[in-house]
């Protein structure tokens, strides 16, 4: 029983981290179809934003709360910069995009090493996030609960925004049919930039959260980018709810396999499972179905 509860919680917790890392990608890769290898470095930028905020503000609690919107802004602006300078020239050229954004990711990593040094830095968690919470005799780390809550909040906020606001409708309209959107008077250029801003901003938020998990360094992004892509692909391209389910399923599977083997074996088994799953369902968990004639 003990093991069961702990493993389920570890699964949810791992899933929520995966989800935060992948949510922005679900927008930029899933909705817009841009393969952005620098997404991981936007996460890293968010983490370093939290570090800088704490250096400036001192108080851990305040700086964490300020870091979340700041990191969203930093990630978002990096994304807009990348979109406006490079990506807009290579829509519909996925291979070029892949290489170029990988180059950008290497540049950003080197930049981080130059500015913050090669050693990892710590961002101490505020007092109200350290230590466990006791529920029914089980203890759960507060920081993990905070991450879980934040991940859920981010998903709810994003799906409400996509569903209810005119901006969200515009994003969905542009994704579904670019020509029709333009002919309906939507500036798809502006919509692309805004979508990229939000997606990259979410990466920044994920970065802040990762500072609660341990020390951060310039290669923080590389350890999450592959998992993030896995989540989006398994979930089904363009489906936020798919990404949510995929993140929690992958998190749970990983935590169980890790429990009975080691971390690297778990990774191998997880990848094998994903490959097998995609053989059976190449479109991911959810597929877009319509009665479209086109």
């Amino acid at each position, binding site marked *: 029983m003990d093991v069961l509860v702990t493993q389920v919680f570890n699964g949810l917790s791992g899933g929520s981290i995966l989800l935060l890392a992948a949510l922005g990608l679900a927008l930029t890769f899933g909705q817009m179809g841009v393969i952005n290898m620098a997404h991981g470095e936007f996460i890293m930028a968010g983490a370093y934003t939290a570090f800088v905020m704490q250096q400036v503000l001192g108080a851990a609690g305040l700086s964490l709360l300020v870091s979340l919107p700041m990191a969203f802004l930093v990630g978002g602006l990096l994304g807009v910069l990348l979109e406006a300078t490079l990506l807009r020239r290579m829509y519909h050229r996925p291979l070029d995009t892949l290489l170029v954004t990988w180059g950008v990711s290497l540049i950003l990593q080197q930049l981080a090493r130059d500015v913050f040094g090669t050693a990892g830095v710590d961002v101490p968690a505020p007092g109200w996030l350290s230590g466990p919470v006791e529920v029914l005799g089980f203890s759960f780390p507060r920081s993990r609960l905070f991450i879980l809550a934040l991940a859920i909040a981010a998903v709810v906020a994003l799906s409400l925004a996509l569903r209810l606001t005119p*901006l969200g409708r515009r994003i*969905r*309209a542009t994704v579904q049919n670019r020509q029709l959107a333009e002919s309906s*008077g*939507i*500036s798809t250029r502006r919509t692309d930039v805004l979508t990229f801003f939000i997606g990259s901003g979410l990466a920044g938020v994920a970065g802040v959260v990762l500072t609660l998990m341990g020390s951060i360094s310039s290669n923080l992004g590389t350890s999450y980018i592959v998992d993030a892509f896995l989540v989006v692909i398994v979930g089904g391209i363009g489906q936020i709810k798919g990404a949510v389910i995929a993140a929690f399923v992958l998190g749970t599977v990983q935590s169980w396999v890790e429990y009975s083997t080691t971390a690297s074996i778990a990774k191998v088994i997880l990848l094998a499972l994903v490959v097998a799953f995609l053989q059976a369902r190449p479109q991911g968990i959810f597929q877009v179905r319509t009665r*479209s004639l086109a």
Partner: protein
Amino acid sequence: MNADYLELTDLTVSFDGFVAVDHVDLTVLQGDLRFLIGPNGAGKTTLIDAVSGLVPATGRAEFGGQDLLGRKVHRIARMGVGRTFQTATVFEELSVLQNLDIAAGSGRSAWTLLRRRRGVPPSVAEAMETVGLTELADTPAGILAHGQKQWLEIGMLLVQDARLLMLDEPVAGMSGEEKEQTGHLLRRISADTTVVVVEHDMDFMRAFAKSVTVLHAGKVLSEGSVAQVQADPLVQEVYLGPGSHTAEEAAIVLGEGV
């Protein structure tokens, strides 16, 4: 004379040397319901693509006194030029109401985009009524019947305040009754807008066209009323092949009244 009219001067579209629209001059006045007909590959759809900015063109395409060519697609749309596509093209995963909302709100500022709007704006409600989709407001557009999708497209043009409507085969795949309804809808709309319809359906054309332009190989072949165009020997030749034809033969392809 009305200020709103479409005037194409020397409009030319070429793809890698293939001239799809070849120096076309065309004027459509407000209140007109102009049908563009012609055999496959005549350049009908390319012509309205060029006017709506989807393909680059040379020459002039003026609407309401302003040249449309060279502007961005969404700018042209916001100038009051609306078009539909050959296969019914709507945002499949959005509801009827949301589809109309997108078309209605294209000019909104970034700030209002983030606010959740309550209620249905009167223009949207009115358009929904006009195209007869009020009862389906919350239905996802993807599961509408084919004819209803076409009407939704027309409704989207109405809420956009389009003053020039270009419709690409609006009655393709519709039943007789649906065609009839669509025809009356177009008649009503065209009273105070400029409407251009690309159509292959000759019966529909005869029943509702106010004027007709025949395109062939990218050029204007003939222009005038339905009767004038049908009687034109050049038009008969394009549709029936070279040589002289009997009135009966022409009537089969081009319809009665030749």
